[in-house]
């Protein structure tokens, strides 16, 4: 009864020689041959309820939830594993299909505990949603439910076997996508559970995805456990800052605190996945030791809070008076901020940055997807803006140079070189302790979760990220602060919106030619391939 296995349906279907026409719920659709009914229904805007099917995984057809009524078929067909045929008429929501789904739901709920109030998945649980939509109001099962204790799967994953509906998405992810087959289905019948290979843990760099793939609350993130309810979270589209891959993510905040990072699907970059490092790379966004007001060195030689206008004027004066300007820019800044920094730097100055590195961790089953060695989101963007990458960027500092530190981390740098600097200006989210006694002006900026902008990933794809939370104190978006400083130095007009900066950037840099801020959408576009690294005006 299993139809021709069509793995990973939307993964680059070649231009079809012909198309298949069928009708789903009265809506005519035209799809390439070999498409599953479920994917065709998606195209028609009809959601076929399903658990085991996932577009990124091979089809298993085990949950029986996607049963649909196809005219002239002797019995109901699983929509995920049945290929479309010309002239088919499919009913998703007729009595026969609904009754089948109601039965499937009743079976799934036989051993499912009624612990939605304490389950982290509540609110984003597909079992909860479908039961509410079309399940029975009560259970006819009177016998005691099966009970298995909670198991720690290692890594960030906790397994609650009682809630498991055995869709095997996690098993298929680990064996086919991560290609580290540590999970299996152990035992049979109602005793079945997800087992873990003896002596192995879910420590694979991408293992955290099983938590997202799990349609119920059986696989939970230990990091997010009991932290927030799904309906309390505010979500905004962003780009992961953990490495230069630029995975599309959603930042989820509660009460202005980022509590979770989840992948956002983008078949051109990260498919449906995010790695463990990226998932846990959010705590720094909530740090409390932020620079919150503009500081200017007063007459007594002590930093005193100043109004924004005075602080920007002071910064512009210091930078304009520089005999030679060295800009130490973080590779975590947006393209917009780096572009404005290159304007402030001018042709005579020097721009440098350093990127933290770590071991690379590829995801075997996905093309060109890995946790990259460069652990910063915008190293490519910085290079395109004419910043040079160094292991010891402060070595570029010559005696008497003015140093502009733009949100760059000082950890691991040769700080003895700072003694050569004449004046130091800081524009960033924090004021490093080493600089407190030396800095002339410090301007507070927003971090990546508090402003919007774009990053260029290592393949040259420009992707937008949106604001997720409010900035502390008087901090302003980096592009706004840098734009004001550049204007005060007489280097162009201050932008009103990040889109203005992007338009100016696209005009100045041939690599970005033809791109518009709005045109990038939320999935990004690649820069021109002929981009010479470091082409500034």
């Amino acid at each position: 009864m299993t139809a021709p296995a069509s793995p990973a349906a939307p993964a680059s279907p070649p231009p079809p020689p012909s198309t298949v026409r069928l009708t789903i719920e009265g809506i005519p659709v035209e799809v390439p041959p070999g498409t599953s009914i479920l994917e065709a229904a998606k195209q028609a805007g009809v959601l076929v309820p399903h658990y085991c099917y996932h577009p990124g995984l091979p089809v298993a057809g085990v949950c029986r939830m996607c049963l649909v009524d196809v005219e002239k078929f002797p019995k109901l067909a699983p929509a995920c594993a049945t290929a479309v045929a010309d002239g088919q008429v499919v009913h998703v929501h007729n009595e026969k299909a609904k009754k089948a789904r109601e039965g499937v739901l009743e079976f799934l709920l036989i051993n499912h505990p009624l612990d939605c109030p304490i389950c982290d998945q509540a609110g984003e649980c597909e079992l909860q949603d479908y039961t509410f939509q079309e399940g029975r109001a009560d259970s006819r099962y009177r016998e005691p439910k099966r009970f298995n204790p909670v198991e720690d799967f290692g890594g960030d994953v906790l397994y609650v076997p009682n809630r498991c509906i055995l869709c095997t998405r996690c098993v298929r992810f680990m064996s086919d996508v991560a290609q580290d087959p540590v999970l299996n289905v152990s035992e049979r019948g109602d005793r079945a559970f997800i087992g873990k290979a003896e002596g192995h843990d879910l420590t694979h760099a991408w293992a955290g995805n099983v938590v997202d793939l799990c349609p119920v609350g059986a696989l939970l993130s230990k990091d997010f456990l009991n932290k927030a309810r799904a309906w309390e979270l505010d979500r905004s589209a962003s780009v992961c800052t953990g490495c230069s891959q630029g995975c599309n993510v959603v930042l989820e905040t509660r009460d202005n605190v980022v509590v979770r990072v989840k992948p956002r699907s983008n078949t051109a970059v990260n498919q449906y996945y995010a790695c463990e490092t990226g998932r846990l790379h959010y705590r720094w966004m909530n740090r409390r030791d932020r620079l919150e007001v503009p500081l200017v060195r007063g007459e007594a030689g002590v930093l005193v809070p100043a109004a924004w206008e005075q602080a920007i004027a002071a910064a512009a004066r210091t930078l304009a008076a520089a005999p030679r300007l060295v800009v130490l820019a973080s590779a975590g800044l947006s393209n917009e901020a780096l572009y404005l920094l290159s304007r402030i730097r001018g042709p005579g100055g020097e721009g440098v940055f350093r990127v933290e590195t770590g071991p690379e961790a590829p995801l075997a089953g996905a093309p060109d997807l890995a946790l990259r060695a460069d652990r910063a989101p915008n190293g490519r963007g910085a290079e395109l803006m004419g910043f040079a990458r160094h292991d010891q960027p402060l070595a570029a500092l010559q005696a008497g140079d003015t140093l502009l530190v733009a949100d760059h981390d000082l950890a691991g740098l040769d700080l003895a070189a700072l003694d050569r600097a004449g004046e130091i200006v800081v524009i960033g989210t924090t004021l490093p302790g080493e600089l407190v006694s030396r800095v002339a002006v410090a301007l507070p900026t927003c971090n990546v979760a508090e402003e919007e902008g774009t990053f260029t990933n290592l393949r040259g794809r420009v992707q937008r990220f949106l604001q997720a939370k409010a900035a502390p104190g008087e901090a302003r978006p980096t592009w706004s602060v840098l734009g004001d400083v550049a204007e005060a130095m007489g280097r162009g007009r201050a932008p009103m919106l990040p889109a203005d900066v992007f338009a100016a950037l696209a005009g100045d840099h041939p690599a970005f030619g033809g791109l518009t801020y709005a045109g990038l959408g939320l999935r990004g576009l690649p820069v021109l391939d002929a981009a010479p690294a470091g082409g500034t005006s």
Partner: protein
Amino acid sequence: MAIGVKVVERPTGEVSYLRSTLSGLATTFRHLVDPHKVTVQYPEQRWPIAPRWRGTHRMLTTEDGKAKCVACGLCPTVCPANCIKLVPGEDEQGNRYPLVFEIDEFRCIFCGYCQEVCPEEAIHVGRHFENAELSRDRFVYDLARLTSQTHDVCELWDPADPKGE
């Protein structure tokens, strides 16, 4: 009348307050001699409180004295007055429990939704209304205060017995 206000003669007999004053006083004097008394000598005597009265909150506890609450977050979600503050935590056995559970009785509108939504039958509105205090901050009830209350709790409306009989 520089701006030309029109003065209308009013019929004095119909607008006189004398008649209604007298009829009002008649009611007063009739109650003076009426045997049916409605006045209750309040602190000593009390009216019975209705079984579905929604008053001061109370958190019920398990046999070992812990609050029944599992910090599911439904009551702060359903609360129309936003008066419940809840921070979930995890105890040594890995059970979910409320680290912080506070109800601002000033802000509460006593709709009773929190009791209705609670899946654990933990939080209740009570058949109790005498919650005067000498300082304002005492009106934010924390978990210890909510669990130490002993008054009766509100009975929920039973659809099978709509009149409560």
